[in-house]
């Protein structure tokens, strides 16, 4: 059985936010909602300074704390490892947000468009988010299922710093990179076993 995962090479990321916007466009998230933000971290003191760019998304953890915390069982995990929130079952406790170490989940109290009440044609076509529920990255499961097509964030990255593939296949690009470049899981000590690995 496949286990979908992603490797993010921090040595290649240049902080351009292409992934952040591609995600928004693909998923039609409401105004203020970002499933694939890129954080910055400044390290060092002048003049030996480095600004790190840290692309993030839902880690689709094997032992997902959000799934465990959710009281209504709205969060489930597929056999291929993708963790999904069912908005119709969600009642909006935000227990998942409290549980997630990766800032992956957003609670949308009131979904709105970028220009206020009037939605643009794109928003009307893509924005399916209901209000009062939690939502997060889905690894673009619809692209995977419909066309075996990688997530939008991976497809758009200009420096190819995001690689998507099967973590259960030792010869896949993701597995090879993790092995050869000493990939690390974020906050590995928490035991969530994230499916997103970082290379430094």
């Amino acid at each position, binding site marked *: 059985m496949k286990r979908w995962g992603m490797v993010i090479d921090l040595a290649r990321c240049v902080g351009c936010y292409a992934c952040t916007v591609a995600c928004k466009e693909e998923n039609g998230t409401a105004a203020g909602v970002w499933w694939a933000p890129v954080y910055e971290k400044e390290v060092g003191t002048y003049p030996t300074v480095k600004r790190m760019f840290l692309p993030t998304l839902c880690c689709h953890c094997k032992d997902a704390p959000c799934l465990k915390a959710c*009281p209504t069982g709205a969060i489930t995990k597929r056999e291929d490892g993708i963790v999904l929130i069912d908005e119709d079952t969600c*009642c909006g406790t935000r227990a998942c947000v409290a549980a997630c170490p990766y800032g992956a989940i957003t609670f949308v109290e009131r979904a709105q468009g970028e220009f206020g009440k009037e939605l643009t044609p794109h928003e009307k076509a893509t924005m399916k988010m209901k209000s009062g529920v939690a939502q997060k990255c889905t690894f673009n499961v619809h692209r995977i299922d419909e066309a075996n097509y990688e997530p939008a964030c991976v497809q758009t990255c200009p420096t190819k710093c995001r690689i998507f593939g099967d973590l259960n296949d030792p010869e896949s690009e993701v597995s090879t990179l993790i092995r050869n470049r000493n990939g690390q899981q974020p906050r590995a000590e928490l035991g969530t076993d994230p499916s997103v690995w970082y290379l430094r």
Partner: protein
Amino acid sequence: MHHEAFAGSVRNPFTSGRWIMEPKPQNIWGKSHATWFTCMGVGAALFLNRVLFDLELGKVLGITVAEWLSLVVIGVGGLILIADLGKPLHFWKAYRNPLTSWISVGFIADIVFCVLAGLWAIPSLELGGVNALGWLPWAGNKPLGLLFQFLAGTACLIIIMYPGLVLASSGSIPLWNSALVPLQYLAFGFNSALGLAYLSARVGVGPIPSPVWLPVLVFLYGIGLLFLLLHLLESWYRHETGRFSVLRLIHGDVRNQFVFGALGLGVIVPLALIIASAFNSSSSLTLLAITGLVGVAGNWFSKLAIIRAGTYAPFL
């Protein structure tokens, strides 16, 4: 500075502010949760004190004030929580994940308590001095009644602690991720409930609690303080973000709620009032009644402060 347009309509502790990898204060739970947690704790402790120690706090219409209060307070707390949900009308689904979700466990316990404690109280009802339903098979200490008390009481124990366990189960927030959180909930639940017995006595509803309870009250406030201080120490030394949270509590944006509210109203003032009452026998009941009131307020602040000061650790 930014993001005012979406503040309140979209909540994510990391993306709501500056996109910098740094400790991020949680922004999903606040006063509603502090109120819910406090109500749960106080209500449940009142019921336990009633069934275990006969602390009835008086009677109204045949039913003890302790039972009235516990049902009302837990009910109100529940309603406040439901109103806070993103989709309040879907609250009833919250029972579905008891194997891993403390909220589910608590929800089930809440239902069990409300049903069983409510049922158990009904036979005691006296209308116009007449006890019409005392024949019900679970009334008072009949075997079924004892079973109801046992189950409702167990539910209460869960109810006092589960909110703390909800917080403690979050590995992402070092301040919350501690056994000392549910322990504080236990201590403050009971010291609030016991304090209310003196308030009830002072307003002439209930009897003055036996002198044996005063040292217990002191103990309960003392242990609340101890758990609180241990919690600060543990957070400080265990994780950098824990330290960040502690600084927020004693020095930063949560200072007033923590220092004056939780520490002050929650333990210092009550203890001071109790000591004062020992030297002032004429006003001692008044002072102890005020202790009860202030203690509940402090309990609320202690929960609010910890909830607010909860900060996510940077994850990269």
